[in-house]
Each structure stands twice: as structure tokens, then as C-alpha cells.
């Protein structure tokens, strides 16, 4: 007699209002992913270990082209600035540059990274509230686009201009009311209060700088296309005021980024596919408002700084269950080998969770913990899962944005990151760390060396 397939024994109490678990119809409730872009999850982990970040080159390129076409077909003079902070793995940045994006950096480190990759200064937009003097001087001499954040930076830039004995073109970072709450007022100069106009006055009086662009970034994960329309209308109006008052001609309008991906924000009612407008709706609202606001014959550059919307959906994290336990209140809990140390965005997103195999049995409300010895390390605190065995793999997505830049180096090594190429080959794009990565920069004073140590 052949044995029947085993499912772990489970008993769930039925509660009114909570009787939609679909525990008995696995096909409807469970998401199974055995491969990413045709490469099997088993093979990936067999070769590169677990946890493992996997990027899909095909998805990344397709997303870029879709989004770029959405804008360029409506307003041809458009440039994408790849937002390094979203994901500055070299392979990802290079892929975006191959597609035509220039670099958008917000620190000296990111600037260096773009240069190291071979991006010339004039293809780098330098933003951010902290631009050290040395970095400013380098950026100016290499011809980078610099968006000024504050009055002190204007003074610094004038010093650089004096030293290099030339007029420096700069953009100005604005903050404004586009109907988005909270309003990001800590970056740049406020438009409505007249602060921005005062700063322009100051720049004109100084005589060493010339304003040739405006920059703004109204927030992150903006779901209302009309907010961008309001933003750009205000920016262009202000651009014409600058021309009128000081003779500054705006060569570019940089509207920042903040476009949503299909990540599911915790606490949002509708699913992302329904709640989040398509990129065409954003492109339509922005280019329409832009064309309306511009005077006939003007055709300035439109710069979009996108990160999340371009890369998030290309990234997956494969993890493995290392232990299963039951909490005191009866809730089933799993420990995975990757947690918030790798998925920093777990704090505000509910990920799509897929299993690497079909698992039978009744779904239970379960918690997925990461490997950290800290209470905050929970990736999902209420997911319906059938009872899982140790070794089962959980695949989280989308995780391409912000995780490989904000991940923590805390008690664990950071794992391999691989790219599944368009040809279906798998390339390591960042090697797993070992102990030398942790200790390389450390110095152990002589008197602290242990006798039996090395």
C-alpha cells in the first residue's frame, strides 16, 4: 500500500467574520514560484546559497522602456535621472545608463560611484542637502548639474566659482504645496513664502552663479498624478518670473521622482493594481500640465528622477525557513534566514510572498520572523500559510528598491546578489560577504591583542 502525501496536523477555530481563509482550496490561496525568469529557485539557491537577492534584467529593461516611452512620446525633450539611492549596485546603475538614464546622486559617495562607473560629470545631477566643499568643487569642475539646496550652499558655490574663476550654472531646489501631505519643506527653498525668490535675488546679486534650472521633489509613493501637474505648473510659472526679474533662462525643469511601484503599502484599502494609477496617467498629467504652462516656442528639458518605479518589481529575495515554532498564543511562527536586515522596506510594505513548492493542508495565520535577535525583525505578522517544513523557501517581492542600499550590516553577512540576464544566464553582481568584509577596516591596538590569538 503506497502512503498518502503528508500534511501537518492543524486545527483552527472558526470565528464569525473570519471564515474566509480558503484553507481547503490550496490552489486559490497559495502562490507558488518555482523559477525566476526561467531559472529555477532550487538551482539558484543550490549555486548561490540562501538568502539570495535575484534581479531580472528583462523586467528592469522592459519597465524602463515602458516608462520612458510614456513620457518621450508625449514630450520628446525628456531625460531620466537614475536615482542612485534606490539601488546603487553597479550592475543595476550600468543597466539604467545603458538604457539612456543619466545619474542622479545625493552625496559625495554616490557621486564617486557614478564617476567610477564611467559617467562623465555632465551626465550627473548632484542633489541633496549635504554637498561637502571638496565634492562641490569636483562636481563644478567636471560640469555636473548641481541643484542648490540652501543659502549656505550658494555661498560655497560662489567660493568655488571664484576659485575656478568662472560663472557656474546651477539649478535651484524648490519645495512647494502640490497638495501632498506631508509637504516636504526641509529640502530646498519654499516657493509660496517667497523664500525661493529671495534666494534667486541673492544669486543674481552675487554675480558668480546663473540659475538655469529648477528642481523639486514633492514626496515619495505619490498616488495622485494631478499632484505632479500642480507641481510643474507652479515651477514653470516661477521660471518665467525668474526670467522676467533676473534674465535667468530655465534650460531644465527637474520634477523629481516619487512614482509608486506595485508595492503594497500597509494600510491601503485597494490592491496596488487597482489603487495605483498606471505610468501613462502620470505621464499624461505631467506633460499636459507642462505644455499648458510653457510659452509657445519654449522647449526646456524635462528631467524625471525615477528609482522605485523603475527597479522595484525587478527584485526578489529568496529566503529559507530555518525553524518553525508556535507562539504562546497559538500563532504559528517561522524563522527565515533573511529578515529586516535585508528587507528594510518591510517596515512599510506588505510583500508578495510566494512558496517554492505546492504545500497542502489548512492555512493558519502565521508570522514570519527574520534571523535577528530583535523583536522588530518581523517581515509579515499576519499571513495565511499552510504548515511549512524547515527548508521551504519563501520568495519576497517586489524588493528591488531601497533594500540593497538600506540593508543593515548587523550580526549577519549580506548574501549574494545575482542578475538573471536577458539570455537566461545568472551573474553574481555582488558577492556574499565574509568575515574580512567586517574586519577589513578595523585596527586592533597592540595591547588589546589576545595572547593565544593571532
Amino acid at each position: 500500500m503506497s502512503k498518502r502525501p503528508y500534511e501537518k496536523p492543524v486545527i483552527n477555530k472558526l470565528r464569525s467574520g473570519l471564515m474566509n481563509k480558503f484553507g481547503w482550496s490550496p490552489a486559490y490561496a497559495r502562490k507558488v514560484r518555482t523559477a525566476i525568469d526561467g531559472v529555477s529557485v532550487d538551482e539558484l539557491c543550490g549555486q548561490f546559497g540562501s538568502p539570495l537577492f535575484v534581479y531580472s534584467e528583462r523586467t528592469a529593461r522592459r519597465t524602463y522602456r515602458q516608462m520612458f516611452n510614456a513620457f518621450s512620446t508625449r514630450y520628446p525633450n525628456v531625460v531620466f535621472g537614475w536615482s542612485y539611492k534606490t539601488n546603487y549596485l553597479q550592475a543595476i546603475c550600468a543597466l539604467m545608463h545603458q538604457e539612456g538614464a543619466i545619474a542622479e546622486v545625493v552625496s559625495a559617495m554616490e557621486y564617486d560611484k557614478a564617476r567610477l562607473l564611467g559617467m562623465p560629470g555632465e551626465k550627473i545631477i548632484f542633489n541633496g542637502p549635504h554637498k561637502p566643499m571638496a565634492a562641490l568643487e569636483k562636481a563644478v569642475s567636471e560640469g555636473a548639474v548641481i541643484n542648490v539646496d540652501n543659502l549656505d550652499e550658494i555661498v560655497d558655490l560662489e567660493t568655488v566659482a571664484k576659485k575656478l574663476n568662472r560663472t557656474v550654472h546651477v539649478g535651484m531646489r524648490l519645495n512647494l504645496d502640490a497638495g501632498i501631505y506631508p509637504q516636504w519643506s526641509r529640502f530646498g527653498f519654499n516657493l509660496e513664502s517667497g523664500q525661493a525668490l529671495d534666494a534667486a535675488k541673492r544669486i543674481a546679486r552675487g554675480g558668480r552663479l546663473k540659475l538655469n534650472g529648477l528642481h523639486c521633489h514633492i514626496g515619495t509613493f505619490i498616488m495622485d498624478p494631478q499632484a505632479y501637474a500642480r507641481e510643474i505648473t507652479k515651477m514653470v510659472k516661477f521660471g518665467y518670473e525668474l526670467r522676467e526679474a533676473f534674465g535667468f533662462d530655465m534650460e531644465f525643469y527637474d520634477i523629481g521622482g516619487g512614482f509608486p511601484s506595485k508595492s503594497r503599502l500597509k494600510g491601503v484599502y485597494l490592491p496596488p493594481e487597482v489603487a495605483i494609477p498606471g505610468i501613462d496617467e502620470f505621464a499624461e498629467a505631467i506633460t499636459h500640465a507642462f505644455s499648458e504652462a510653457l510659452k509657445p516656442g519654449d522647449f526646456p528639458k524635462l528631467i524625471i528622477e525615477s528609482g522605485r518605479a523603475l527597479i522595484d518589481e525587478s527584485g526578489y529575495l529568496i529566503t529559507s525557513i530555518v525553524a518553525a515554532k508556535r507562539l504562546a498564543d497559538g500563532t504559528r511562527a517561522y524563522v527565515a534566514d533573511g529578515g529586516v536586515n535585508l528587507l528594510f522596506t518591510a517596515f512599510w510594505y506588505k510583500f508578495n510572498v510566494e512558496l517554492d513548492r505546492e504545500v497542502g493542508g489548512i492555512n493558519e495565520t502565521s508570522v514570519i520572523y527574520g534571523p535577528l535577535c530583535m523583536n522588530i525583525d518581523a517581515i509579515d505578522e499576519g499571513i495565511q500559510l499552510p504548515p511549512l517544513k524547515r527548508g521551504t523557501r519563501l520568495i519576497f517581492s517586489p524588493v528591488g528598491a531601497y533594500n540593497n542600499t538600506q540593508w543593515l550590516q548587523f550580526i549577519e553577512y549580506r548574501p549574494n546578489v545575482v542578475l538573471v540576464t536577458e539570455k537566461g544566464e545568472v551573474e553574481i553582481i555582488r558577492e556574499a560577504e565574509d568575515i574580512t568584509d567586517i574586519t577589513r577596516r578595523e585596527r586592533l591596538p597592540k595591547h588589546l591583542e589576545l595572547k593565544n590569538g593571532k
Partner: protein
Amino acid sequence: MKDLAIGVSGINAVDNPGPGIGVARSLKEDASLNARIIGLAYDAMEPGLYMDWVVDRSFIMPYPSGDGGAYFERLAYIRDQHGLDLLIPNLDAELPLYIKRAGELKDMGVGTFLPSMEQFKLRGKDKLIEVAERMDIKLPKTKVCTSLDQLIAAVDELGLPVMVKGSFYKAYAAYTSTQAVSHFHALVAEWGYPVIVQSIVVGEELNVIGLGDGEGGSLGLVGIKKISVTSLGKIWTGVTIKHRAMMEAANRFIRELKWRGPFELECIVKGDDVYLIEINPRFPAWVYFATGVGVNLPARLVRAALGVDQPPAPDYDAGKLFVRYSYELVTDMVKFQQAVTRGEVG
């Protein structure tokens, strides 16, 4: 005529009832449709699962969340196992998904009769100003706010008290500006922008149920007044009426927007002035009231979806009374067990 398998959701005939049972009952009463009702439920405790004289077979559905993949797989299963010719979704939360994927349903051989996404968005509260203009109907003074500054300015301009409304659901009266601000924050947190501020109009609350053919023609309209409501604000007793100005506005709504599918207009009437309060893009829970006075809108919807020619909607009499009542049924635990273990009953 072969029997027609019609999926109906919202069979939660509880104290805050969904429209499903009213819709199903209307379909059953039109014997020539030969309708077999497939109930779509989200919980094993929805009364419709147990009302076998109205609902022939019921299924527990996954929530229409995510990309709707699981939901559609379930629909495909139902179609394959028991047939599914037509679907009438009756719950607000289902509509965006159904509308967005109506084409796929059609490819699956499952008909619907729904407004387009553009029309659906027009009934959003932030678009009411535009719709009211096209309907040539009054709107309580309305301001659409996307920032706190705008809200404060709007309250100043309209004067207190005001209604503060979320873009999808929920509405609160505010008697002070502090209250308005706190409602504003609560609504933004739950529903996002924009938030709508409206002045409060005092008058009679009248409603219209209707069905548009999608080309500007009406497939039937019935006007009512709610005489009494429950503590949840749901109709308990009502009476049919024929307020000329309101009915004309409802006809203009169908004509101007080329509305396709069922709808309910909530209005406040003050003398001859009709103010539009809300548009619901589905049947209301009291849909059977219209059927009871001879205007069987669900049955007419089915014929419209099948492309069957039908005569103009019959007239109805004003002064017909609607009385909701409580009633009980007793059945075996087995049905509950089936709902829980198999996800289907019947």
C-alpha cells in the same frame, strides 16, 4: 430557454444588508429568465448561503484583492463546474476589479453590465461638481481639498456646519473648524486625497434607483423616500414617489454620462430644488422595492447584458409602501460545515 447561471454577490442579508438577495429574488421572480442563482459570499455566515429558495448554489470567494488572480481563478472554477453566464457584482469593493477586468470576463464567456472606468471615476465625490453640472442639478456648495490650507479656506468660505467626506467612503459632519481638521486628517489617513467639504443642505432625502443602457437610454427608474431608517441608516420603511425634477435629473444623468449599468442617486430635495449628494454605481440594498412595484431592474439588466430587445420600462405608482421585516430560518449544521470545508453550499 435554457437556464441562465447568474452570479450574484452581496448575499449578506444582515442588519447592514448587501443588495444581493434583493437582486437574486428579483431574478427569480421573472420566471421567463429561468435563472439559476450562484451566490458569491465572503464568509460562511452570510445568510444568503442558507436561503436555498433564493440562491441555488453558493461559493465562498477569496477577497478581490491583490491583482484579483485568486478571485478570477475561483470564478473560472465556478464557470467550469456549474456554468456562469453572467455576473452582477453588488459590492463597492468589487467594482474596480470587475470594471478593470470586464474584458477578461467576457473572454471567459461571462457577461457583465457595468459602467466604464471613466464613468466609475466620475461618480467619485471629487468629480461631483462636474457631474452635477452635466445633470443640471444643484450640488451643496462643494470644495475639493488636497491640502490642509485648502480645507481651512473651504470651511471659512462655506461656513459651519459642513460635511467632510472621503473620496471613496465615509462622511462626517463638523460643527467646529477643529472638528473639520480632525476629520480631514482621519479621512486622509484612511482614504487619501482629495477630501471633499460640503455645506449642509436641509430638506427631504429622496433616492432614485435606475439602470442605464450605456447609450443614453433609460432601462427604468424608480423614485422613493425613506420613511424610517435603522440605527445604521438603512431603510426600514419607504414609499414610492414621483418627484418630477429629481426624475428628470436622473434621466439627464443617464443621457449625459451615457451611464451603463445600475445606479442609485441620493438627493436632498428642497421645494423644486434637487441637490445631488451621492452616486452609487450599483444597485442599492432596497432594489427589490422597484421589482415589487413592477420595475424589475435586475431582470432588465440581464436582458440588456444578453443584448435582448425589451420594451420600455413600465410605469409605477407613487404611494406604494415598502416594509422590511425580520424573519428566521432553521437548518442543519451540515450547510455550515459544507461552507467551511468545501467552500460551497447547495
